[in-house]
C-alpha cells in the first residue's frame, strides 16, 4: 500500500473494523509511513477531544426534562391491560385461538405465494410513479420549510461521463438554498470546472439553478424529457425514470432518480444525453443556521440578514467611528439598553452580559443562538454608544462584566427530577400520579417565573445601586422605576397565583393559622428589599422541590407545608415592601 491512508481507513483501523487483509495492509503502511503514523496519532488525540466535548460540554448542556419522572410501578400500571376483557379483546382472543402458530405459517405461505404470483404476472407496483412524485413534493415542502435564519445545504458529488469513456472522479459541490435564492458553490480541489459545467448544462436547457436533488429539480428535467414516468425498485429504494422522446429537440435521452422511501428524498439523479451522462449524488443534507454560513455566500443567499462583523461594533453605524460618544450620557445609554432588553424579555435569564466604560456600553451576546443575536442587534441598532459583542473576548472572565441573565442559576434547565418517592399522604391526596405531576409542574412554573423576575431585579439593583440611582435625571429615574415596577408586578402576580394554588392543601394537611409576617420597621431601599425577596423566593422554590419532587432532602408534606406557606406569606410581604418603596418615592 503506497497511497496514504484515508481518514476512513484510519478510523476503521483504530476501531478494528477493517477486514483482515485491509488491517495487514494498513499496519504495513503505518510501519513504513511517518506521515500516516503522525496523522494517526493526531486522530487519536482528536477523538479524545471529541469524547471530552461530548461528556463535558454537549451532554451537560442538554436541558433536563420539564416534567417529573413517573415511578416505574406507575409506568407498569399505566401500560397494564384492564382486568376485564372488553368485547373487542374477546374477539381478538377468539382469533388468537383459531389461528394457532402452525395455521398462521401455512396461511401466511399461501398468501405470500399468491401475492408473488400476482406481482410476477401483472408486474404492477404497490405505488405508482405519480404517487412517488407527489410524496417527494410533499416531503420537500416540509424539508424546505426551515425557520427564519436557517438555510438548506445539499452537499453533492457531481461528474459528467462521456459515453464509452471511463468514469472520471466525482467532484464535490454544495448547493445552498434560502427562501429567496439558490447558490451553487464548488467544494474541494478541481471542482470549480465541474460546477461551471453543470451550470452550463442547466443553462443550455433553460433550467433554473435550484437544489439539484429536489422535487423542483426532478420536475424541471422530467418536464423537459416529455416522457411518462415509470417506477422501478432498486433495493429498498425507488427508481423514477423518464425517457425522452427520440425526436425531441432537447437532446435529452433520459432522466433517472433514486428515491429513499423512508424519507421520500431524492438521493441521486442521472441526466442522460446522447453523448454523455451527468451524475449527481447526495453526500449529505443539512439545515444550516446563517451564523455558520460564510459571509460572502450569505450576501448572495440572504443579503438582508447579513450579520454585522463579529468583533464588537457600534451597531448604530456600522463601520463608521462613533463620533457622538463624547456627548453621550452613559446612564441614559445603559438605561436604553436595559429597556430594550426588558422589552424583548431578554433580561429573564438569557446569558447576556453588559459592561460599560466612560464611552460605551458593551452588550455581550455570544452565548445566544444566531437568530436571537440578530434580534437583539436589530433592536439596539439605533442606540448611540452601544456595542454588541458576538464573540467572547479571549481570556475575559465572565465575572468581570455585569450580567442581565447569566447569573440566573439554571432557571431554564432546572427541572422536576422525580415525583416517584413523594410521601404517601400526597399520593393519596392527588389520587393519580399525573394529577400530582401537573400540580407540581404548575407550581414550579410559577415559582420559576417569580425567581426569574427577582434575579432581573437583582441585576438591576447591582447596576443602579441607591447612590447611582440618586444621580440619575428625574426622567431616567422614572424609566428605571418603570422597569422595576414591571418585574415587581409580574412577581407578585405569580406568587399570588401560587398561593391560591397551594390553598386547598392547607385544609387537607391541617395547616393552621400563620403567624403574621413582620413588617419591616427600618428604612429600606427597593434595592435591599428586592434582595431580601430573592433570598426568600429561593427558599420557597427549594421547599416546593423538596415537598413535591424527589430531592436530596425530601420533606413530608404535613411537616413542610406550614413552612412553605409561611415563607410564601413573607415573600409576598417583602414584594409589597419593594412595591411600596417604588410608589412612595
Amino acid at each position, binding site marked *: 500500500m503506497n497511497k496514504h491512508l484515508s481518514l476512513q481507513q484510519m478510523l476503521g483501523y483504530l476501531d478494528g473494523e477493517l477486514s483482515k487483509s485491509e488491517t495487514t495492509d494498513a499496519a504495513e503502511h503505518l510501519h513504513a509511513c511517518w506521515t500516516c503514523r503522525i496523522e494517526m496519532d493526531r486522530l487519536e488525540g482528536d477523538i479524545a477531544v*471529541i469524547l471530552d466535548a461530548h461528556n463535558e460540554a454537549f451532554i451537560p448542556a*442538554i436541558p433536563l426534562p420539564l416534567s417529573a419522572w413517573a415511578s416505574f410501578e406507575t409506568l407498569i400500571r399505566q401500560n*397494564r391491560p384492564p382486568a376485564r376483557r372488553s368485547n373487542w379483546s374477546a374477539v381478538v382472543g377468539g382469533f388468537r385461538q383459531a389461528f394457532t402458530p402452525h395455521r398462521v405459517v401455512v396461511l401466511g405461505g399461501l398468501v405470500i405465494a399468491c401475492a408473488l404470483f400476482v406481482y410476477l404476472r401483472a408486474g404492477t407496483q404497490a405505488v405508482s410513479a405519480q404517487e412517488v412524485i407527489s410524496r417527494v413534493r410533499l416531503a420537500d415542502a416540509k424539508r424546505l420549510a426551515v425557520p427564519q435564519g436557517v438555510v438548506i445545504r445539499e452537499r453533492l458529488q457531481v461528474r459528467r461521463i462521456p459515453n464509452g469513456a471511463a468514469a472520471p472522479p466525482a467532484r464535490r459541490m454544495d448547493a445552498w438554498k434560502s427562501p429567496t435564492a439558490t447558490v451553487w458553490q464548488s467544494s474541494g480541489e478541481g471542482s470549480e470546472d465541474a460546477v461551471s459545467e453543470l451550470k452550463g448544462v442547466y443553462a443550455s436547457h433553460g433550467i433554473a439553478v435550484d437544489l439539484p436533488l429536489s422535487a423542483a429539480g426532478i420536475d424541471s428535467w422530467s418536464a423537459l424529457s416529455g416522457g411518462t414516468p415509470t417506477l422501478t425498485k432498486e433495493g429498498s429504494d425507488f427508481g423514477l425514470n423518464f425517457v425522452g422522446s427520440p425526436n425531441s429537440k432537447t437532446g435529452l435521452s433520459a432522466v433517472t432518480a433514486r428515491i429513499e422511501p423512508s424519507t421520500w428524498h431524492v438521493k441521486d439523479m442521472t441526466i442522460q444525453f446522447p453523448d454523455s451522462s451527468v451524475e449527481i449524488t447526495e453526500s449529505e443534507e443539512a439545515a444550516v443556521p446563517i451564523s455558520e454560513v460564510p459571509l460572502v455566500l450569505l450576501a448572495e443567499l440572504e443579503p438582508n440578514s447579513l450579520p454585522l462583523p463579529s468583533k464588537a461594533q457600534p451597531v448604530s453605524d456600522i463601520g463608521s467611528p462613533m463620533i457622538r460618544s463624547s456627548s453621550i450620557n452613559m446612564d441614559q445609554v445603559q438605561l436604553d439598553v436595559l429597556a430594550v432588553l426588558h422589552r424583548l424579555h431578554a433580561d429573564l435569564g438569557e446569558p447576556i452580559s453588559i459592561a460599560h466604560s466612560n464611552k460605551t456600553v458593551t452588550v455581550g451576546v455570544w452565548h445566544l443562538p444566531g437568530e436571537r443575536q440578530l434580534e437583539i442587534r436589530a433592536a439596539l441598532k439605533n442606540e448611540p454608544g452601544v456595542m454588541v459583542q458576538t464573540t467572547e473576548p479571549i481570556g475575559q472572565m465572565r465575572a468581570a462584566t455585569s450580567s442581565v441573565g447569566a447569573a440566573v442559576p439554571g432557571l*431554564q434547565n432546572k427541572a422536576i427530577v422525580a415525583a416517584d418517592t413523594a410521601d404517601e399522604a400526597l399520593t393519596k391526596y392527588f389520587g393519580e400520579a399525573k394529577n400530582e405531576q401537573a400540580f407540581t409542574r404548575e407550581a414550579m412554573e410559577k415559582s420559576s417565573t417569580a425567581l426569574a423576575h427577582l434575579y432581573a431585579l437583582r441585576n438591576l439593583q447591582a447596576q443602579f445601586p441607591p447612590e447611582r440611582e440618586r444621580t440619575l435625571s428625574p426622567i431616567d429615574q422614572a424609566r428605571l422605576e418603570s422597569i422595576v415596577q414591571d418585574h415587581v408586578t409580574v412577581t407578585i402576580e405569580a406568587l399570588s397565583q401560587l398561593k391560591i394554588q397551594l390553598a386547598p392543601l392547607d385544609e387537607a394537611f391541617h395547616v393552621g393559622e400563620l403567624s403574621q409576617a413582620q413588617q419591616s420597621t427600618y428604612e429600606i431601599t427597593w434595592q435591599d428589599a428586592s434582595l431580601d425577596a430573592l433570598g426568600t423566593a429561593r427558599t420557597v422554590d427549594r421547599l416546593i422541590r423538596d415537598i413535591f419532587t424527589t430531592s436530596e432532602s425530601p420533606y413530608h408534606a404535613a411537616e413542610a407545608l406550614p413552612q412553605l406557606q409561611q415563607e410564601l406569606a413573607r415573600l409576598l410581604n417583602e414584594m409589597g415592601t419593594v412595591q411600596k418603596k417604588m410608589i412612595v418615592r
Partner: protein
Amino acid sequence: MAEAKAVDGAPFRKLEVAVGVTPNATERVSALYQTLRVPIYRFLMAQGLDAGTAQELAQDVFIKLLIAIERGSEIHNEQAWLYGVASKLAVDFWRREGRPMWVALDAMPALAETLRAPDLTPEAAVARGQKLRRVSQAMARLPKEQRLGIHLRMQGMRYRAIAEILGVSTSTAAEWLSIAVDRLRSAANE
C-alpha cells in the same frame, strides 16, 4: 442489535405489560430505570427529539425491556440493549417527522475552563473550554444520522450494529462516521 428486534414496535402505542411479570425482572428493570432513565433521555434529546417526546420514549424503552425479559428474550447487555432500542425509536421518530433534527442545547456557561484541567494554566484552560464548546456546537449541528452514529460509537457499538439501526450498509455507516469525525476535528482545530 438482534435482540432489539424482539420488541420493536410503534413507540407511541400503549405498551401492554403482562400481569404475570416476575418480581425479580420488575425489580431489575426498575433499578435500571432509576439509574439509566436520565442518560437514555439525554441520548434521545441528543438525537434532536423535543424534551416531552424524549422523556416519553425513554420511559417506553424500559417498558419494552421488561416485556422482552418477560417474553424470554436473551439479553446479554441490558445497557447496550436499551441504547439500541432508544436509537431505533429515534430513527422511527425522524422518519415520521421527515425534517432535519437539531439539538437544542442550553446556553453553555463557563463550563469546561476549570473542569478536569487542574494542571492547565488559566489561559490553556480557557482555550480548552472554547475548543470543547466548538466541538459540542458542531456535534449539535451534525446531520442526524451522523450524530446518532457518533453517539452509538461512543457507546461502544460496532459499525455493523450502527448500520443496522440506521438502515444502511456497513460501508455507508463507516463513511458517515468518518465524515462526522472529520467535521468535529475541523471544529476542534479551528
